[in-house]
């Protein structure tokens, strides 16, 4: 009785409209000729030009990109290790604390995480700057990665690993040669999640940053507080476009693979 009633259609359409309207408005007004964000002055790409001249903004963008790449990659490695420990190592001593430390950051308000990390760096006498933000981002990203991979690992067919071991492959090599290639989509999803979280973070970066390390969200935030020009809209549009392209491509790729796989299975089932 899977009726897709008119009410259902309406809710989904309205819901999507609600989600996308603000984004669309933002994008449209980035092409606004006028300096006043909400008064339409005609189509123009002047703000994109202004962006390319804005050293500070480009600097922040570059910092943010490096930050996201590094923290996502390290977080993926640590997160995978944590996931393996949670799923495969049974009830080892200290597991509840470990599990708690993985889940808590998912819901912890940013202000608490940011403040606590800053105080740590101060207490250790560590000079704050780019690398302290990296450390902070790795810390919360690895928890998200761990959750994504934990979910995939717990439904992974153990008999594949047993078969590999039965054929003479040692456990660590089995993980690298059998398990990892098969759960790769989850690892990639985890990396992308870590990348986006880092790209997007304002509060924690603000707490843990030092002189010279300004991230794009921090720059956007300070611009918004000072007084807005559509240049902010332009930056936002570019970010949205990048993310959207990434998500759409990932979606299409995974759909294609799934369809191809289904087709192959159907063909095979028809054979003797």
């Amino acid at each position, binding site marked *: *009785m*899977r009726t897709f*009633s008119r009410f*259902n259609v*309406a*809710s*989904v359409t309205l*819901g*999507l409209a609600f*989600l*996308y309207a*603000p*984004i669309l*408005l933002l994008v449209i*007004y980035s092409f606004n000729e006028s300096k006043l964000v*909400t*008064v339409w002055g005609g189509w123009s790409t002047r703000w994109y030009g202004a962006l390319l001249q804005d050293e500070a903004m480009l600097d922040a963008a570059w910092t943010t990109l490096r930050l996201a790449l590094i923290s996502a990659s390290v977080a993926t490695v*640590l997160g995978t*290790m*944590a996931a393996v*420990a949670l799923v*495969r190592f*049974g009830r*080892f001593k200290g597991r509840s604390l*470990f*599990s*708690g430390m993985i*889940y*808590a*950051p998912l*819901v*912890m*308000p*940013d*202000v*608490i995480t940011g*403040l606590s990390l800053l*105080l*740590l760096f101060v207490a250790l006498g560590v000079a704050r700057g780019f690398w302290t933000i990296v450390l902070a981002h790795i810390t919360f990203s690895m928890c998200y990665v*761990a*959750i994504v991979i*934990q*979910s995939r690992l717990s*439904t992974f067919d153990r008999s594949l690993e047993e078969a590999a071991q039965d054929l003479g492959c*040692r*456990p*660590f090599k089995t993980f690298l040669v059998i398990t990892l290639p098969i759960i790769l989509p989850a690892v990639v999803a985890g990396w992308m999640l870590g990348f986006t979280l880092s790209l*997007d973070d304002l*509060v924690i970066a603000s*707490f843990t940053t030092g002189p010279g390390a300004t991230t794009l*969200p921090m720059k*956007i*935030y300070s611009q*918004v507080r000072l007084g807005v020009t559509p240049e902010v809209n332009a930056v*936002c549009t570019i970010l*949205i476009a990048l*993310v*959207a392209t990434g*998500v759409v491509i990932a*979606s299409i790729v995974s759909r294609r693979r799934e369809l191809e796989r289904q087709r192959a299975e159907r063909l095979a089932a028809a054979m003797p």
Partner: protein
Amino acid sequence: MAGEGDKERSGWTRWLVVAIPYAWLLIFFLVPFVIVVKISVSTPLIGQPPYTPTFDITGGIAGLFASARQLVVDNYIFLTKDALYWKSYLSSLWIAVTSTFLVLLFSYPIAYGMARAPRAWQPSLLMLIILPFWTSFLIRVYAWIGILKKEGFLNQLLMWLHIIHEPLTILNTNWAVYIGIVYSYMPFMILPLYAALERLDGTLLEAASDLGCPPTRSFWQITFPLSLPGVIAGSFLVFIPVTGEFVIPDLLGGHTTLMIGKTLWDEFFSNRDWPLASAVAVVLLILLVVPIVIFQNQEQKRLERES
């Protein structure tokens, strides 16, 4: 049974796999909280770092004890006395509870609609819902400034439709905060709800109908209760972070919007009173510990059930 046979003969690889992330989290997640507690019982100071006492190893054990004696609970007493703080906590909790409910109210029909949609459309719908989630939180909140301000799009639209004649003041009020929270946190609620609803066995509803149950009643008696795990997961994913939310009340709220995340930020960056900010953080953490622990238990159970 599988765990037993999985014993790694090379114990050191196994040990490392646990030890490295464990150590990382201990150092960068747990220890900082201890430090926050310690700072919260310190006194503010002009200087670097802006608090005293600082624990100095060179002073030896005696030095440590001497420093410890300087710890004070003044900050906590201050929190209870000054109305701003306990009002902020209550206000944050209230806003969090209300927003969670509002998010649930708006998200449920959407998730339900998605689950009922033709199978072929579902991956695309899912992608469309997830897309805003991947785009920057800050950007999306910023977008609402343009919509809600006096000269913003909403007022322009309403005036153009002649529904109102004077622009409404929405920005910098609690209403804007609610709108901002609902908008930003909807994907967090839709996803777990959709996952739970999508898994629902359609034949259960058919059986109910066959036994004489009209659709509205079968929704409340069958669909909703079975979707409860999704409702709970989504609610925690919204309630806990919203309690300490900063960006939305800062950009969309006004002077009358009291949220503890904003209070903490101001205390830290504007007043430079680190000990007080730490005390605020500790109390917030205590308020959230119980929900966080419940959330973690629920998720673990859910994972075990599904594997």
